[in-house]
C-alpha cells in the first residue's frame, strides 16, 4: 500500500560532496551502501567549487598541537576540543588516502606535497591543487567511488527521514519524475552540506539550501550553534547576477589590497597588525562597516586591488580570478576588483559525537551539516579537511553498526504524501517565496545583528513558511520541499541568533554589551531541537 519503490541497505548516505562520497567509500567496506544525491554526483555542492586548500600537518616543523590551537583560537573557543583534536590528527591520514587514490596536488621541487600559508594559521599547512583544490578532491573521490560497490541514486531529492520510534531507519525521497522512493537503512548518514543559499548574497551552489538541517530537526535531532554563519569577506559585486561569487582569500595572500572609495587601506582602522590578512570575520565586518558608512563603491563594495602586482604573477598565481573577471569585463591586471561580504559557510549543525553519531539513534552526520568542529568561526582550509576526516569516521562507525529492524511507519509516509498533495494544490509561486526569504535573511540576520531585527526577521520567516507554495507538476515537488527546508533552516538561524546574547566569532550582537573576550565567555553551544532550545552555561574561566 506504500507508494513507490523500496530500497533496503546497510548504510544510506545522503549527500554527495566531499564528506558524503568519503563516507560512502568507507561504509562500503562494511555492507551494502547506497549514496543518494539530489544532483549528479561530483557536480553538485560546494566541495567541487572550493579553491583554497586542505589543512594538514605534514612537516616536521609543524605540529598537531599548533594546528589544534590555531583552530580553537580561530573558532573563538566554541569548538568541541575532542572533535578538533581528531580533525588535526587525522587530516594528514586522509590526505594520504587521497594521494593513494590518485589526487593531483601541487608538489614542491623536492617532490613533496606543496603547502601555502592561509588565514589564522601560524604555519603554512594548506595543501592545494592550483586554485581548484576542491575540484581535485571531488574528481579523485568520485573515481574511487566508481570502483567501489556503492549503489548510486542520482537526482533523487530526500524530503524527510524515516523513523521507527526514536530511531532513524532511512529516508523518503522523490526521484526526478516526482515519484516517491523509500530508502531503508540500518544507519543513515546526513552529509548534505551547508545552507547559506537562504541569504540573498552567497557563495554557495544551488544545492546549499540547508536541507540536512531541516530534515534532521524535523526528525528530532539536536542542532548546535546555528547562528554561526561565516560571511566570507570578498564576494563579487558586479554584475547583479554574479553577486556573492567567491573571490578567493589567495588574492589577499598574494598581496591584494583592500581600499575604500577614498583610496584608503581601511584595514588599518580594524586590525593594523595583520591588515588584509586578518581573520575572515574581522575583515568581513570591516568591509561591511566601510560600505555602511558610505565609503564603498558605486556598486556597493570596496576595492580589492592587485594592479601593483606584476602581470606574470597574476597570470600564474590567480588564473581563475583573471579568467572569471575577464568574462565579466574587468581585467584585474589593469583595474581593481569590487568585492563585498557574502554568506559562505555554516559552522553550526547537527550535534555529533566523535563517532559522528547525532542525538538520534541510527542517524550520523558529517561535513558542513554537522556542528562543533569549527566553533564560532572556521579557518580557511579546515573545511576540506573536515569532509575527509569526519566523512570517513561517519562511514566507518555507521558501517560497524548492527542491523536493526526497519519497520516503516505508514502514518509517517501518509503525512508526507499529504504534504506533497498540498503542494500540487497550492497557489503561491515557490520562487517568489524563496526570493523574499533570501532578501529578508540578508537584511535582518546578516553580519550585524540585534534582537529587534532578528525578531522581525523570524516573524517574516515564519509567515513565509506557511505560504501555500505550488508545484506545477510532480517534477516540481522537490523544489517545494526545498523551499520549505530553507524556511525552517532560516528560522533555526534566527532563533539561535536570538538565544546567543553575546558577540562571539562570526556572530555579532550589536545590542549586547560584553566585557569579556571569547576565551572567557560564560557560554557554550546554543542548542535547538523539537523539544527544547537554549544555551550552555559554563563556569567562569572554564
Amino acid at each position: 500500500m506504500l507508494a513507490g519503490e523500496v530500497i533496503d541497505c546497510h548504510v544510506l548516505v545522503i549527500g554527495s560532496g566531499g564528506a558524503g562520497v568519503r563516507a560512502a567509500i568507507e561504509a562500503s567496506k562494511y555492507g551494502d551502501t547506497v549514496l543518494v544525491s539530489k544532483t549528479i554526483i561530483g557536480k553538485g555542492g560546494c566541495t567541487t567549487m572550493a579553491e583554497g586548500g586542505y589543512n594538514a600537518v605534514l612537516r616536521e616543523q609543524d605540529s598537531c598541537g599548533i594546528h589544534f590551537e590555531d583552530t580553537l583560537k580561530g573558532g573563538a573557543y566554541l569548538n568541541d576540543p575532542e572533535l578538533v583534536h581528531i580533525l588535526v590528527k587525522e587530516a594528514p591520514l586522509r590526505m594520504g588516502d587521497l594521494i593513494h587514490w590518485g589526487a593531483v596536488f601541487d608538489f614542491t621541487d623536492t617532490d613533496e606535497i606543496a603547502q601555502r600559508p592561509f588565514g589564522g594559521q601560524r604555519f603554512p599547512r594548506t595543501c592545494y591543487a592550483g586554485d581548484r583544490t576542491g575540484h581535485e578532491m571531488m574528481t579523485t573521490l568520485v573515481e574511487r567511488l566508481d570502483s567501489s560497490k556503492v549503489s548510486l541514486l542520482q537526482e533523487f531529492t530526500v524530503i524527510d527521514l524515516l523513523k521507527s520510534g526514536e530511531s532513524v531507519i532511512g529516508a523518503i525521497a522523490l526521484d526526478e519524475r516526482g515519484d516517491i522512493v523509500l530508502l531503508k537503512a540500518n544507519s543513515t548518514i546526513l552529509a548534505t552540506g551547508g545552507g547559506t543559499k537562504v541569504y540573498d548574497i552567497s557563495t554557495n551552489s544551488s544545492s546549499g539550501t540547508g536541507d540536512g538541517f531541516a530534515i534532521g530537526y524535523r526528525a528530532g535531532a539536536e542542532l548546535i550553534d546555528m547562528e554561526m554563519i561565516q560571511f566570507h569577506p570578498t564576494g563579487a559585486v558586479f554584475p547583479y547576477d554574479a553577486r556573492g561569487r567567491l573571490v578567493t582569500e589567495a588574492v589577499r595572500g598574494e598581496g591584494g589590497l583592500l581600499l575604500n572609495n577614498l583610496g584608503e587601506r581601511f584595514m588599518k582602522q580594524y586590525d593594523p597588525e595583520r591588515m588584509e590578512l586578518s581573520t575572515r570575520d574581522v575583515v568581513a565586518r570591516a568591509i561591511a562597516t566601510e560600505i555602511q558608512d558610505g565609503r564603498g563603491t558605486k556598486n556597493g563594495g570596496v576595492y580589492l586591488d592587485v594592479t601593483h602586482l606584476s602581470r606574470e604573477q597574476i597570470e600564474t598565481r590567480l588564473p581563475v580570478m583573471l579568467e572569471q573577471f575577464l568574462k565579466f569585463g574587468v581585467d584585474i591586471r589593469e583595474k581593481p576588483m569590487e568585492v563585498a561580504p557574502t554568506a559562505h559557510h555554516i559552522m553550526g549543525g547537527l550535534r555529533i559525537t566523535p563517532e559522528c553519531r547525532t542525538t538520534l539513534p541510527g542517524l550520523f552526520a558529517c561535513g558542513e551539516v554537522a556542528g562543533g568542529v569549527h566553533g564560532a568561526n572556521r579557518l580557511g582550509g579546515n573545511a576540506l579537511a573536515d569532509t575527509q576526516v569526519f566523512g570517513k569516521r561517519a562511514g566507518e562507525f555507521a558501517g560497524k553498526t548492527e542491523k536493526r529492524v526497519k519497520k516503516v511507519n505508514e502514518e509517517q509516509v501518509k503525512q508526507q504524501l499529504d504534504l506533497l498533495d498540498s503542494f500540487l494544490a497550492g497557489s503561491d509561486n515557490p520562487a517568489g517565496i524563496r526570493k523574499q526569504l533570501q532578501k529578508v535573511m540578508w537584511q535582518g540576520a546578516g553580519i550585524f545583528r540585534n534582537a529587534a531585527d532578528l525578531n522581525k526577521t523570524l516573524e517574516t520567516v515564519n509567515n513565509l513558511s506557511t505560504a501555500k507554495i505550488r508545484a506545477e507538476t510532480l517534477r516540481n515537488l522537490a523544489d517545494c520541499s526545498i523551499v520549505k527546508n530553507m524556511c525552517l533552516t532560516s528560522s533555526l538561524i534566527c532563533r539561535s541568533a536570538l538565544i546567543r546574547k553575546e558577540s562571539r566569532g562570526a556572530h555579532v550582537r550589536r545590542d549586547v554589551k560584553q566585557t569579556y573576550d571569547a576565551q572567557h565567555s560564560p557560554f557554550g553551544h546554543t542548542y535547538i531541537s523539537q523539544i527544547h532550545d537554549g544555551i550552555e552555561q559554563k563556569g567562569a574561566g572554564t
Partner: protein
Amino acid sequence: MKTLTVRVRRFDPDKDKESHYETYTVKVNEGARVLHVLHAIHDTMDSTLAYRHSCGSGQCGSCAVRVNGEPVLACMEEAQNNITIEPLNLSVKKDLVVDLLPTLETISSLKPSDALKMPTRSDIDMIKPLRDCIECLCCVSVCPAMDVTKFLGPTAMRQEMRLALDPRDSGDRVVDAVNEGLFTCTSCQACWKACPKNIEIPSKAIEKLRALANRRGFTLPRHQEVAALVKETGRSVTRIEPTFMELVNAEVIEPKGPVRATVGFFVGCMYNMRLPTAALDAIEVLKRNGIRVIIPKEQVCCGSPLIRTGQLAFLDTLKKRNIDAFQFRNIDTVMTMCAGCGSTLKNDYKTPFVVMDINEVLTKYGIEPPARLPFKATYHDPCHLLRGQGIREQPRQLILQVVDLVEMPSICCGSGGGVKSGIPDEAAALGKRRAEEIKKCGADVVISSCPFCEFHIAGHTDKPVKNIATVLLEGYMEKDRKKGNLIAS
C-alpha cells in the same frame, strides 16, 4: 534591467512525440548570463522548464547547453537577444536536461596499485592540464567521430592519457585507448574549441596516446605505410601524374605589374601531387595581385601525417629540411595553401619566419575585384584552418566578392587525423553527412581551402567542389571576357 527574447527547445517525454521550440520574452539584469534567462523563464513564466545548474561560476559543468548551435556553460555565457537555447547533442531526458550518466560511466577511473609509487613534480606538472576537466560533455556534444563510430570520445581519451602519465595507476591505458577508438579521431579540434577549460585534447591527449601506441607497435598498418613513404620519398603520397612543382618548373614567379609582397610558397604533398590545378590557379591569382612567389625545391612533407598518427621518429629531419629551404633564401613570410600544412607550420614548428595562409595573404594585401559569378556557393571550413589557425572571416570576405554565399554548420569532412587512410568507412560516413548538409543549404557549388577537404568532399557530393583560388580565377576570367566583349563591341 533589459528585455530579451529567446527561443528554447522543449520536450516532455510524457507528453511530446518530438521536441519543439517555444519563444519567451523576459526581463533580466544587465550582464545576465544565459542561466539567468532560464531562471527568469522558470521562476516567472513556466516552472515546468527543466535545466541543470549548480555552481553558477563555471566550475561544475552542470549547465552545459547549446546556444545558437554551440555548446557553452549557461552560467558563463552572456545572454544576448534572439538566441536559441538547446540541449547538448546527447539523448534528451526533458527540455535542456540530457542523459549524462551513460557517457560519464565510460570515463575510466584510476586503479591504484597495491604498492604506492608516488609521482614526481614533473609527473604532476604533465598531468595538471589534463585534470581541469569538469565533465561538462561539451566536447562530446561536438565530436563528429562519436556520431558515426563507437569512439568513447574526447574526454574519455583525455582521462586515459592522464592515467597513462600517473605512476599510481596500474591499468594499461594505451591498450584501453586503442580499443576505445583512439584512431577514429579526425583531429578536427572541435572538442578543444568547445571546452570551457580550454584543454588541448588533440595535441595533449590524442596525439600523445598515439605516440605511446606507436612505441608499443599499435600504429595502424596503413599509417605505417604512409610514414615509410615519407621517409623514403619525402612525400606522404605517391607520384601518379606531373606534380605542381614540375608543372610550374620555376623557383621564382614574378607577378604581373609591381611587386606588392614576396612570399615563400609551402605547397604541401596534396596540392603538389593530387590537386596541382588548384595550386596553379592560386599562382595565377597571386600573380594578378602583385605577389611574387618563391617555391624552394627542397621542401618536403610538413610531417603532419606523422604527427597526427604518433609516428615521431624522423620528424626533426623533416622540420629542419623545410625550415632550411626557406631560411636559406632569406624568406621572411611563408605562405601555405593547405590548411593542414599551415596549422602544422604554425603550431608544431618553431619557425624563424612568419607563416600565413593564402586567405590571410590575399585579404592583407587586398585583391583586384573579380567579376561576379552567377551561382550560389557554400563554404566548407577546413578544421585546420578554422580551428587550427583561427581563420574564419578571410575566406568568406574573398568568396563574397565573387558569389553569393549560403552557410552550413562547420563540421569535419572526415578525412583528417589519418582517418581517410586508416578507417575509410568512418571518413566515408562523415563525408556523406557533409553531402547532406550541402544538399540542405541549397548551394550549387562547394568552396573550400584545403586539399583533403576538397578531395574528400568531391568524392561524396555531385556538386562541384572548388578551391577558393579556382573560384577567384574564374571571376577574373569572367571579368576579362566581359572587358574583351566591351572592347570588341
